[in-house]
């Protein structure tokens, strides 16, 4: 049993990281007052751009191709998110419908482009990111084996982004303003904050994060773009809600969900887990999020102005 946990842990962490960064992206957008149901689509865009960039560059720059791919995924994720920002912030469109449109546009256009560029709907990369064990730290009893062996560089990169984002959101002027736009945009506006600009920035950050999440999934776990994000973006959305729109909350939630999904994913190949009913493990994140919503219905932590287009003239 103990050995099993040691073996599962690296996979669970690898599964958690794309969820975490995507969820963090959703956090930025929703804390600024813009609902982002398009996380799945933004992630898919990141998967496609990441996989395609890597497949094109890895011949020439074998070592750095992965990082070029991750960067490209972030950039294109942010650009693609502009579409959502434009609809929600400038045009005051319904944020849910715009998010759904983002998902549908992403799943149609990525496969369209994949077919056009490669002939098939799939984009494969030859080499993903390699795992490595951190010297010294991995020798710490228990924790070392759990957290510092067989890790990916992206894991530490994403955790760094999480820490930096927490600092950005809670300790800087930018973060305070961003959160104010999600709680009471009119008050923020009268204090001299440009609500439109803040929301644009937040939605773009969420696109970059979700794009990074998608590309991270490609370079660590899957190794190919196959036209679907398989609900990872929605799982990240569930984690955002279950984590009550707080950075450390979503860290806990994504790890919780990531671990459950990992057990369900590997239960076919690990004999000790063959009796695990996958249906409960896979539906568990969604069921528990619903339960959390019911329990927190009296004291929801959701941003107050979420989903409301900002209208300067309204009182």
């Amino acid at each position, binding site marked *: 049993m103990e050995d099993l946990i040691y073996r599962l842990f690296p996979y669970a962490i690898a599964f958690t990281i794309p969820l975490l960064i995507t969820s963090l992206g959703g956090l930025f957008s929703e804390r600024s007052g813009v609902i982002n149901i398009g996380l799945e689509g933004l992630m898919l865009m990141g998967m496609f751009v990441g996989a395609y960039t890597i497949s094109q560059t890895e011949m020439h720059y074998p070592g750095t191709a992965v990082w070029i791919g991750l960067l490209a995924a972030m950039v294109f994720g942010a650009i693609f998110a502009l579409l959502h920002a434009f609809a929600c912030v400038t045009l005051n469109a319904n944020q849910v*419908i715009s998010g759904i449109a983002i998902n549908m546009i992403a799943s149609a256009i990525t496969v369209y482009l994949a077919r056009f560029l490669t002939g098939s709907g799939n984009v494969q990369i030859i080499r993903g990111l390699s795992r490595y064990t951190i010297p010294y730290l991995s020798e710490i009893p228990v924790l070392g084996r759990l957290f510092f062996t067989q890790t990916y560089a992206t894991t530490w990169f994403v955790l760094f982004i999480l820490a930096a984002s927490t600092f950005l959101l809670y300790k800087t002027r930018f973060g305070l303003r961003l959160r104010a736009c999600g709680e009471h945009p009119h008050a923020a506006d009268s204090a001299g904050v440009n609500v439109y600009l803040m929301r644009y920035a937040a939605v773009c950050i969420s696109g970059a994060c979700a794009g990074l999440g998608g590309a991270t999934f490609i370079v660590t776990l899957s190794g190919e773009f196959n036209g679907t994000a398989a609900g990872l973006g929605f799982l990240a959305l569930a984690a955002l809600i279950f984590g009550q729109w707080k950075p450390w909350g979503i860290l806990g939630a994504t790890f919780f969900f990531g671990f459950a999904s990992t057990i369900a994913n590997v239960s076919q190949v690990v004999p000790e887990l063959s009796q695990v009913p996958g249906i409960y493990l896979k539906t568990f994140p969604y069921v528990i999020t619903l339960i959390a919503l019911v329990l927190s*219905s009296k004291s929801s932590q959701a941003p107050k102005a979420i989903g409301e287009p900002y209208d300067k003239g309204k009182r």
Partner: protein
Amino acid sequence: MKTRVRVKKDFTMSLFAVLLGMLAGALLMLVTGSNPIENFYYLFRGGLMNIERIGNTLATATPLIFAGLSVAFAFKTGLFNIGGAGQMLIGGLCATAIGLTFSWPKPILLTVIVLASLFGGALWGALPGVLKARFNVHEVVSTIMMNWIAYWSVFYIVPQYFKGPFLETESQRIPEAASLKIPWLTSLFSGSYINLGIFLAVVCVVIISIILERTTLGYELKAVGYNRDAASAAGINVNRNIVLSMAIAGALAGLGGATFYVGFASNMQIGVLPSQGFDGIAVALLGANSPWGALAAAIFFGLLHTGKGFMSAMTVTPPEISDTIIATIIYFAATSVLIERNWNRIKQYSPVALYKKVRPGGVDSTAGGEQ
């Protein structure tokens, strides 16, 4: 007079969204180096060129009609049902399970299948309704969660109980008696996928428009949609109407699931959330949330989906162009608020308005009357 202006305006908006969507599709074709006019010609020809293709267009449109009706109905009560995909899956699962388990005569079996999918979908829709009414959980979030609960339930239930003979990822084929396809209809459309679902869909369009326009229930549902507090003050049981609206919306999507999984197709694939659930949102938006509008919009999307295979066979354009066009239409329908807000300004420049303006003394009397 007022309603006619509204209908005309809705129609113009929908036309705008469609044109912009097709324009975006044409741009994408141009960027990827193919000829849009040729592509659109093959796209429409592929959906309409013979009786079989027309049958397929209608068969593809059938689940879309249901999904669109479902979204439109919930919208009328001010609820946003984006759980159509999950409700379709559950409806389809109920239909498939009954079709594979019982070997009754076809009329009885089909009746039970339709009822089962209706109740399965209704249950899946009612739960978010209850959560909304009782605990104020937003239905958008809860229906998303219900979609994925349905997805993973089907993912594990189908291989465990109804595993197909060859593949782990699909169910057994349903027997002929459990299929909504019937021989005379199939041969009438020379072997197309068309099935009884299309009649069921038209019947539902009629029923839903009667419920909304002619019954107390419809009046109450719409009242809740317009202003919850006012409805409550007028003695309408808001919570009951929310649950009921979601249950009916779920039932419609569930029926759509039956027409897709035991009508259009003959087995269930796992690991796929039916795209019709989300296309239904586009159908409802384009149909301006009216049942007949949804019917028309669904047939248009059915045409796009049926024609795409032929188009991609005749040209080098990948078939996903249709999905791109539909997705872009949703985007433009979502942003149509912009057009709506400037509706009166746009109207000033329409040929009719300009004519009225030049006509001496015409401007004030007409402009005031239509607003």
